[in-house]
């Protein structure tokens, strides 16, 4: 009991009486943890942006102009039964024509051609929305054998699949790039933090030697450093939370406006994942401090 209270007392004294060293160590750790949080945030924002792009994609099934509404409705019912599709929007021949006219209103040649044609050249269409690419794959397979396959003029699914493949490739590259960057900066940050702790103990090597000469055991000398390391880690994590959450709230409106992702909130993401993000960071900081302290102290205990 007396030993534990003394270890705690020495840990506190060591931290307080080496104030500048403590501030430097703490600042380095905070910078490291803020950088790690930023890497988590960038990853989440990238994910949200890519999901948004994927969700904005839609696939059209264009029917022949001769297809009657009853056939289209029947096809819609069959497609809605597929589990991978979120919703299906019906577009009548007339709506298709109106939309085309609206899209090409500035092109006089097209407008004139339409007038010359007289009849509506468009058929009805179904616009499919799926949760993910697999939903569209499923729809494509179904269409190839469906009883309404003969009244389909064209479908966007192959084009969509190409886009999705490219998007997947891009996503993979972005994630790999982010992973390499995270790994590089993370490693850099860990080396900096590790060496800061070692330098901090190096400056106290003479004191460690004196303690040994007075008859202190290795444990009696080392424990306060371990406690200090854990306290630094805890304080650094709390400061990181105190910096990152308000910062996330501050940049969130700009981020939403820039990326146009209303459904994603960086602050909510950090709060929701606080245990895994900040918990992991606390663990990393504690491990860095304890390992660096143990290595450094051990070196100077050989007196």
């Amino acid at each position, binding site marked *: 009991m007396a030993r534990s209270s003394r270890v705690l007392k020495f840990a506190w004294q060591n931290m307080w009486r080496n104030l500048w060293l403590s501030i430097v160590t703490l600042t380095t750790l905070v910078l490291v943890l803020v950088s790690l949080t930023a890497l988590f945030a960038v990853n989440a924002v990238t994910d949200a942006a890519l999901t948004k792009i994927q969700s904005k994609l839609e696939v059209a099934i264009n029917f022949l102009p001769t297809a009657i509404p009853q056939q289209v409705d029947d096809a819609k019912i069959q497609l809605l039964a597929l589990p991978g599709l979120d919703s299906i929007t019906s577009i009548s021949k007339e709506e298709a024509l109106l939309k085309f006219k609206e899209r090409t209103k500035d092109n006089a040649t097209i407008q004139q051609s339409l007038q010359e044609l007289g009849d509506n050249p468009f058929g009805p269409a179904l616009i499919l929305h799926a949760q993910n690419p697999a939903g569209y794959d499923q729809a494509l397979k179904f269409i190839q054998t469906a009883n309404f396959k003969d009244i389909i003029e064209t479908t966007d699914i192959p084009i969509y699949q190409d886009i999705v493949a490219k998007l997947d490739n891009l996503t993979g590259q972005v994630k790999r790039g982010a992973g390499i960057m995270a790994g590089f900066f993370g490693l850099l940050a860990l080396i900096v933090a590790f060496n800061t702790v070692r330098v901090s103990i190096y400056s106290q090597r003479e004191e460690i030697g004196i303690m040994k000469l007075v008859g*202190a055991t290795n444990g009696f000398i080392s424990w306060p450093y371990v406690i200090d390391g854990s306290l630094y880690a805890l304080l650094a994590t709390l400061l990181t939370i105190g910096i990152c959450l308000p910062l996330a709230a501050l940049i969130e409106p700009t981020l939403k406006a820039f990326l146009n992702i209303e459904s994603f909130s960086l602050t909510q993401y950090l709060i929701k994942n606080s245990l895994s993000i900040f918990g992991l960071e606390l663990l990393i900081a504690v491990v860095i401090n304890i390992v660096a302290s143990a290595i450094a102290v051990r070196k100077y205990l050989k007196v």
Partner: protein
Amino acid sequence: MLYNEIDMITFDGVEKVYPKGVIALKNINLHIKPGEIVSIVGQSGTGKTTLIKLLIAEEKPSAGRIVIGDWDITNIRDKEVPYLRRQIGVVFQDFKLLPKKTIYENVAFALEVVGASRGQIKKIVPQALKIVGLADKHYRYPNEISGGEQQRAVIARSLVHKPKLLVADEPTGNLDAINAADIIHLLKKINSFGTTILLVTHNKDIVNSLKKRVITLDAGHVVSDNHEGRYTL
């Protein structure tokens, strides 16, 4: 029981050879009785400090046997070293006070490492500081007091264990004549309580004024061992 009534320190054919074959001590045979005050003299590099390092197990002998009381420390294990050091008071030329602790805390630290209770510390530390004349400066940090006062604080720290052996390695080396005389007076006072004192010094006046046993080292050998001797280099 650590100490017997025969010899406080026994060096039996002790040799110390450092890496690259540097011989620091060769065939040292010494017997120091409890309550003695012994000066170890010799020029720089004659092995005086090595002798101290062997006593506090900072170094291990290359050959021979070292016994303190009835504890053979020749092959002392690393984990036993702290327990040895707690039973020997050591005073260094460069003081070796903890700079971030007050004088009181420095003295108390020696008791804290042995697990003394707060009550014991509150009782013993002020007594030790009073003996060395630092009762009124207990709250100061080492850099806020003079060299002589720092050395007295070190002596207070080495006394709180009530050691039967006090080793002083050039305790007056960094002090002026008046402070040096004060320190020697203090050591004599401690010796009068029955503590064995081993004093390593270059100071001829101190050795001559003590009129106690003088062991002279030269090139790692004991060249003279005289009771009530004088500094003869």
